[in-house]
């Protein structure tokens, strides 16, 4: 199973990275995610580990994942250590002035599960794609809202000065 969704956010990559690089914010914008808990000493960066769960129909599926790629502010990738086999990746690319294209990929499955595994992945795919789509829309809304808020605060400070 491989699900990919992308969207364009009206904000610079560095601001987007503030959100996707911070595990504490995942529960606020990731759809279907019921747990994204830091279990390593360092909360972010290469080697950081999280316990993750995503609701897919009747079960919350996930396991322990580890960040295996951390290139600020363009790429963040993780892979599963225990639980269901999975890989995930955030790709953040600048598209003109204060515009960023964000892509979220998740691939996974259960090795050795045969035909039933193949069928389960096909049936689960629309649910996972829906979660990715919603997650990106929520990320876009929150990042752009945050940007508007900080600009307004800056204007207020300038007026006060």
């Amino acid at each position: 199973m491989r699900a990919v969704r992308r969207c364009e956010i009206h904000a610079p990559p560095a601001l987007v990275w503030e959100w996707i690089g911070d595990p504490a914010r995942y529960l606020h914008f990731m759809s279907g995610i019921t747990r994204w808990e830091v279990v390593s000493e360092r909360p972010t960066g290469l080697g950081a580990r999280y316990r993750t769960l995503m609701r897919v129909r009747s079960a919350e599926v996930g396991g322990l994942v580890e960040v295996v790629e951390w290139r600020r502010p363009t790429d963040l990738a993780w892979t599963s250590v225990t639980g269901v086999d999975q890989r995930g990746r955030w790709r953040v690319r600048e598209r003109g002035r204060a515009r960023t294209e964000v892509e979220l990929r998740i691939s996974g499955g259960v090795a050795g599960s045969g035909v039933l595994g193949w069928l389960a992945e096909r049936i689960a795919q629309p649910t996972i794609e829906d979660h990715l789509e919603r997650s990106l829309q929520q990320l876009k809304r929150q990042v752009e809202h945050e940007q508007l808020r900080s600009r307004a605060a800056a204007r207020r400070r300038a007026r006060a000065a």
Partner: protein
Amino acid sequence: MEAAAVQSSSANGRPPDAPHRAGLVQRLVSGVARQVTRRIPAADLDERDPDYIRESLPGTWLLASLYFRGEVRGLGNIPENGPVLLVGNHSGGNVTPDTGVFTLAFTAYFGVERPFYQLAHNLVLSLPGLGFLRKYGTVAASPSNAQKALEAGAALLVYPGGDFEVHRPVWERHKVDFDGRKGFIRLALQQDVPIVPVVSVGGQETALFLSRGETIAKLLALDKLFRLKVLPISVAPPWGLNVGDFLGHLPLPAKITVEALPAIHLREEFGPDPDTGEIYDHITRVMQETLDALAAERRFPVIG
């Protein structure tokens, strides 16, 4: 006069008389009981196979998601680590979909690596074709097996109501009925482990359960032979009228909802030397309240 009748019957070469027949049936049933007892595997916790469970997760997920539209809540109430006694209400006859739905949710949530065992009736484990249950961590229900599992630091799922509760008639489907069995409380106190009540609804709508058949079971001495207090009678596909449910049945696709309640630490809540009767009343009451709430969410039988 009765003796005379017996002599007369034998002399005429007719079929054996009633007492003789009863003795024959008794010997036959005892023979079957011995065979069944011999087939009960010795509990070996090492038979649980995490890789097998992981590989079969997609199949279980398909069944739970599409057929039973399973929904499991409150898994966060189960302690993250260490031994814990999960106490459930039992439904669905000899085919218990709520156990499957909960086992899938538990293993997906905590990972197949966390040791998790379930106690099952001896007959279930001795039936041919169900050997795979041992790979899931199902062991024969006995105090020693339960102790072994908890001492190994595992999560253990028990159904105190057992065969009595699982075969209750369909009009009692929203009733928690442990038949006064308190062994699970003594076990939790002895091992000093928390109890997490696990309440499920929908399982008793997977067939039309009509009667436990307790009187017939008593007449046939099933309790002494197989530890069976019941000989259930139900209407279920593909058999139609189903007596005994020994071969299982095809469950109707009832929506199954399961909820795990907050953990109960017995000595913290009931004192250092708690009364098992008080604990029993408390646990069955909170489970019944939850079952009532879950039942109230259902609008139609089977559909949910």
